[in-house]
């Protein structure tokens, strides 16, 4: 495979981290909750999955069961974080920004404490090959497109379908735009907010898990998950709150992010060390640009949900 192909597929694979993170955050934001805890949630998703694998990695269970249990462990841990967030912001009507930041502090810290207890030989070395099915034997970047990558694409498409083609999705969007109106037509606002936030968190958690177990497959990987959580929040804007667009957006982010490590190998291109940070800055600059352009064009369907960040109390009109 030539270097361009290798670079492209690497970026495509890397993107799955963001697909999960952003799809999860989109579901949450569509319910009107800006979850700044996503970086912490993604860390905890990674920790949950790895700790599960730490238990069963060498147990001799059939491979597909190990894969599924790992995914469930990751999803469950992240969902619990989502539960803390929803309880505080939905039931107790706490400030969403503050709750989210506290969750990020908590989740990232707890992940680092927990991961020091896990044994990389057990949770990483064996299971890594299982998660890289069907291309585990390849030596180029194609090996990175594993089970979790395909799941990411499926989840993003499914999420878009649910959001924009089903009654449930319509109700959820109504909750995010105007909870009082949704409440008046008999939609259970609290239930939608809880479910969207918790399922969204669970999905986001898989992003952290994918990054640790498949993309990086290293015992140090959990340290950088938090940074990609913030990038996932950026990608939500870039994808204009549409989960299927995160597939495209995440590849662009992946290309921008990993080009700094590939560009030096491309013949004919001279880059200095100083160019690397500038290249890594690009995803954020592009996000800012998208944010500005969408706000100037002010098209209704490209805006954040109208009640984003506000808590809903029925008796307050």
């Amino acid at each position, binding site marked *: 495979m030539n270097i361009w192909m290798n670079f492209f597929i690497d970026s495509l694979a890397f993107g799955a981290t963001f697909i999960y993170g952003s799809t999860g955050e989109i579901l949450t934001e569509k319910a009107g909750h800006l979850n700044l805890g996503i970086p912490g949630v993604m860390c905890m998703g990674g920790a949950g999955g790895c700790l599960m694998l730490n238990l069963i990695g060498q147990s001799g269970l059939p491979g597909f069961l190990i894969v599924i249990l790992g995914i469930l462990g990751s999803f469950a841990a992240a969902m619990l974080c989502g539960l803390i967030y929803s309880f505080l912001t939905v039931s107790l009507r706490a400030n969403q*920004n503050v709750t989210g930041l506290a*969750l990020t502090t908590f989740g*990232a810290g707890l992940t*680092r*404490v927990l991961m020091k207890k896990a044994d990389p030989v057990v949770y990483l070395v064996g299971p890594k090959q299982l998660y890289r099915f069907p291309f585990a034997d390849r030596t180029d970047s194609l090996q990175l497109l594993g089970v979790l990558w395909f799941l990411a694409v499926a989840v993003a498409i499914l999420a878009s379908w649910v959001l924009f083609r089903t009654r449930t999705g319509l109700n959820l969007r109504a909750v995010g735009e105007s909870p009082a109106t949704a409440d008046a037509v008999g939609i259970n606002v609290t239930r939608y907010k809880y479910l969207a936030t918790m399922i969204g968190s669970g999905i986001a958690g898989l992003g952290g898990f994918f990054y640790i177990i498949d993309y990086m497959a290293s015992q140090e990987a959990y340290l950088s998950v938090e940074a990609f959580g913030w990038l996932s929040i950026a990608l939500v804007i870039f994808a204009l709150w549409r989960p299927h667009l995160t597939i495209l957006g995440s590849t662009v982010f992946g290309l921008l992010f990993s080009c700094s490590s590939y560009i030096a190998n491309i013949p004919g291109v001279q880059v200095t060390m100083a160019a690397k940070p500038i290249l890594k*800055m690009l995803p954020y600059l592009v996000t800012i640009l998208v944010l*500005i352009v969408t706000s100037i064009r002010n098209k209704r369907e490209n805006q954040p949900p109208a009640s984003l960040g506000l808590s809903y*109390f029925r008796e307050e009109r």
Partner: protein
Amino acid sequence: MRNGKKKETREPLIHLTRRDTMHPAKAWGIRGIAVLLGLLVCGLAAFLLVEKLQQNPGRIGEFYYTFIKGSFATQRKTWKFFKDLAILLSIALALTPAFRMRFWNTGAEGQTLMGVWGAIAVAFYGGGKMPEGVLLVLMFLASVLCGAIWGGIPALFKAKWNTNETLFTLMMNYVASYLVAYFLVVWVPSGSSNLGKLKYGKLPSFGHDYLVIILVALVLTAALYIYLEYSKHGYEINVVGESVRTARYVGIGVGKVIIRTMILSGALCGLAGYLIAAGLDQTITTESVGGQGFTAIMVCWLAKFNPIGMVLTSGLITLLDHGAAQISQDFSVAADFPDVVVGIILFFIIGSEFFINFQLHFRGHEKEGIK
């Protein structure tokens, strides 16, 4: 629910009403209880996470004592406690004008880092070429200017096109961080990105190295309190925060207030960056601010945007942070244990606000006179 039509429909188990006001003493009491409950849960978490405690549960008393020990055991630690408090307080104060205006500035991290960068850039290029006093003044101006620019850009777009400020300022943090990474590559020829301590541009120390920082933070607290409570600007900020429509109606130029306040907020962040650069580090890394820009958001909110209250809340967070760090040392847990402790306590304090703002009415305990 009125008395007349009782039990026709099933009443919910818990009925909520918003409280008008609560006596401050009672409110602080509730927060105090929340902190205590949080500490209790931290103890439980410690049993799950800290092996030395599992082996010897009797050390739980020592566990709690360590919280105090981490901040005040020695004179050096006490100074460090007040220094960290002062830096955190300065950043939280910087956020206050913006937050009072309901402008959710999540970019304090970047604005402060740009402040550090401004000062270090001046010291790097100008150090030794001018008297130290002039250099310090120029560093100060550079810090404040960089912070103001970093805060002003999102405000400009917010005022003109209502661009979402939370996400914009959040992204600016990373732009700042990579900008610093870029300059570290440019400034350090060896490629290690380790700038090392600069020889020039150090704030003079009166008695103790940290004293200047602590004094600046105190002056800042008083000044900001007066600015917000007693000046026309402060009043305008409050009106815009309460209702943009009201502000327009009474003739306040909302856009102007937003831009002016955010430039102030960014400039103050820059000042905090100056304190870090000239008062402490005399160097810069991408981690010079180290997440304090985010912690400050919580400090500011916990104090209900009240500058005086922030002295307490930043003290509480610093105390927990140092205490838990001491615990990681004494009980040999991972160095990230403080984050877990701070996170848990924050959850409890955040949750406790609900009981201050809302009143719960349980089914079957309906009293007369409740609307």
